[in-house]
């Protein structure tokens, strides 16, 4: 079978996928669920409940009419005990609904559907939005928006992303092994919504069993002319949306553009499963598969966890720690966010939680040594950026230079920092440069807008004066 990949750039990482063969285990519901009102990229929700309200599993507890958004649902049954700002995995505080679980597990009514034949794309999109589905790969972009491209854009291909190129994480793999039919259903739903012809499920070649299983299921259902499975070379960051599109379709998403600009939509396999469940069972996104791994946790594995479960409860429920916890990471080791507290909840976009002991300080040393210009970072960048020069620009606070070196095109994959023999904090500095440039652009745009407004006003005044004469 042909192996697909992108070039240049990328790096090999040690995979450490210890939890590969551990089937999903349902974690008991938490005693307290902390459900932030904004778990996605886009407009935050407003509370749909009050303190003291009784909620059932699957009830909408936060929503908004803003288009780029996704409602949030109660993941446990019980009473709303507080609505307050809580620390979230990204490090910021977000208004959250706190529910005390009564352990009665009362469910709201979910609407079952046997076939999607009689639904229009608009109805399907509405169902997906109502279920609160967002991208489960990490970015948490509202799926309903991804599936509503502008009228003038033709989508030809839907790509199911089963690359899972991060180390430790195995949730996508387990979803492919345990729920292949749901993934295929998800692709079929998206093909119908987007009126696209071709579905592709892309899997890295370290997970050939998953690829074979999906291919077998596709053949059993006689869908070979619609959906195909392709193998990708195992390379980091093969699962990055841009890299995946280049690998599979040989096209590049224009800088600042979206996959739909090259006629495709990429969806994580976990998201496809969630879409399928939302449509056929009416099930909102109240729980998700998470890899719990690392050296400091006793029982690494793949667990189905309710959204809103706090890490402190997870640790107790999976059997505790086996050594002193020094680093807690939400997401994978390359792009994940280190946490400062155990009182952070699992969100829709949480694909894994990693627990590390003292050795994590060795794994990613803080101390830098001088850059030796070895060019490893240049060779590793999957975008073709020059991390070494971007780093220099940031350290000199020369944002003009950083901008001319395409800092904003950085996908923050971490490959440059990973390969650096001098342990320079390249990714971190490029990220900061990027943020600074984007902030500056926003300020400039606001200035421009204010200026235009003033100009219009003055012109108007002048006209009025003219008229009076």
């Amino acid at each position, binding site marked *: 079978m042909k192996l697909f990949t992108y070039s240049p750039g990328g790096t090999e990482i040690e995979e450490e996928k210890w939890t590969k063969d551990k089937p999903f285990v349902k974690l008991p519901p938490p005693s307290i669920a902390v459900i932030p009102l904004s778990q996605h990229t886009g407009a935050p929700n407003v509370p749909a409940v009050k303190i003291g309200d009784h909620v059932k599993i699957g009830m909408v507890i936060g929503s908004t009419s803003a288009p780029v958004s996704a409602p949030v649902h109660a993941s446990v049954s019980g009473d709303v005990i507080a609505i307050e700002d809580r620390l979230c995995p990204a490090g910021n505080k977000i208004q959250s609904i706190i529910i005390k679980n009564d352990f009665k597990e009362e469910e709201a009514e979910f609407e079952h559907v046997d076939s999607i034949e009689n639904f229009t794309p608009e109805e399907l999109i509405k169902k997906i939005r109502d279920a609160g589905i967002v991208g489960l790969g990490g970015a948490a972009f509202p799926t309903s928006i991804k599936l509503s491209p502008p009228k003038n854009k033709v989508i030809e291909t839907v790509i199911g992303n089963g690359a899972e190129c991060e180390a430790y994480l195995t949730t996508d793999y387990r979803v492919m092994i345990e729920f292949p039919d749901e993934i295929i259903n998800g692709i079929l739903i998206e093909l119908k919504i987007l009126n696209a012809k071709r579905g592709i499920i892309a899997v890295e070649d370290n997970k050939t069993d998953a690829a074979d299983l999906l291919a077998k299921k596709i053949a059993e259902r006689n869908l070979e002319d619609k959906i195909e499975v392709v193998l990708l070379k195992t390379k980091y960051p093969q699962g990055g949306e841009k890299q995946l599109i280049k690998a599979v379709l040989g096209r590049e998403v224009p800088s600042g553009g979206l996959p739909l600009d090259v006629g495709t939509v990429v969806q994580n396999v976990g998201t496809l499963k969630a879409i399928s469940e939302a449509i056929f069972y009416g099930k909102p996104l109240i729980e998700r598969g998470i890899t719990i791994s690392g050296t400091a946790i006793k029982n690494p594995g793949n667990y189905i966890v309710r959204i809103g479960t706090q890490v402190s409860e997870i640790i107790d429920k999976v059997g505790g720690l086996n050594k002193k916890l020094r680093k807690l990471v939400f997401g994978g080791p390359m792009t994940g*966010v280190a946490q400062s507290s155990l009182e952070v909840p699992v969100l829709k976009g949480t694909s894994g939680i990693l627990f590390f002991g003292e050795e994590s300080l060795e794994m990613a040393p803080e101390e830098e040594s001088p850059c030796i210009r070895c060019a490893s970072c240049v060779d590793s960048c999957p975008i073709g950026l020059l991390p070494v020069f971007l780093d220099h620009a940031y350290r000199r606070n020369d944002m003009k230079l950083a901008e001319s070196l395409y800092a904003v095109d950085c996908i923050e994959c971490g490959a440059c920092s990973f390969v650096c023999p001098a342990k320079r904090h390249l990714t971190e500095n490029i990220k900061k440069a990027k943020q600074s440039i984007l902030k500056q652009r926003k300020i400039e745009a606001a200035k421009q807008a204010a200026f235009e407004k003033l100009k219009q006003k003055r012109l108007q005044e002048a006209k009025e004066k003219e008229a009076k004469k």
Partner: protein
Amino acid sequence: MTEDMVDLVVTSAPHVRKKIKTSQIMRDVLIALVPATVGGLYFFGTGHTLGVIIVAVLSTILAEYLGNLIFRKKSTLWDFSSGVTGLLLALVLPPGSPYWMVVIGAFSAIFIGKIIFGGIGSNPFNPALVGRAVLMVSWPTFMTMWLKPFYWKIGSQSLDAITSATPLNIVKLQSYSALIQQFGSKIALYKVLFIGNVGGCIGETSALLLLIGGIYLLVKKVIDWRIPFTYIISVFVFSFIFGRDPLFSILAGGLFLGAFFMATDYSSSPVMPKGKIIFGIFVGFLTVIIRQFSPYPEGVMFSILLGNAFVPYFDKLRPHVYGVFAKRGGKA
């Protein structure tokens, strides 16, 4: 769960790094230089030649230590880069170099070549070659006194008996045919140059041993293939164009040492893939030009140093950025 089980540190992603350090890279370079060094000791004896190597390495390390002290920098002794510079310097010196000259070369290499630019990673020129260039222009007599291999077996102490001109010297002063005559045939000449049983700098004579080290560095991914490959090919092609024997031209002199160990010096070579290719071709061209038209028989050192000066320009040849398509007349 108790409180003392948790003490969280927050750092920026990535939370895992490749297990590679600057010191490991430098150690690999040292390992790659072992065959050529042992070869040098075999051909030129373990007496004075070994002394030159030891003096060079110790002097560069001392110079680095003093440099760190004077410029109040954190110690960079343990990245082994000064040791690499010292060994490389020794390998490009004639076996009979006086120790005092080696010390001056070593201090020039570290101070003029490296420390004043900010230390490791900041030197625009290859430090070892800077050291050699200083010696070359200061004491040309010592720098062109070539001991014959196994000179101690000759049984004579006279300088004329134990020294000889290098093959490139003979080509410069007499002619290529005279050189072939001296070695019997072209094949015999190639063989001698490949094995290294010929006069020259301590570590430059054996193409075979340098190739072994170079392949080690390529396999270990310490160096990129682009610079050595294009450099050697470029010398081959331009030699042919200028009517020189191309095979002789790549085997003779310090080309393999220069191509695998000097031109690939990270700090003084381009970081861009395309830049590396052009750098290799450019330096190869300069090498042949110097050999052909200048009074110097060998051009590897000056061509690499000249090439180093152009690196900031080669580094403008940036790779394609994903999703950024060159506009006509705009910035690519």
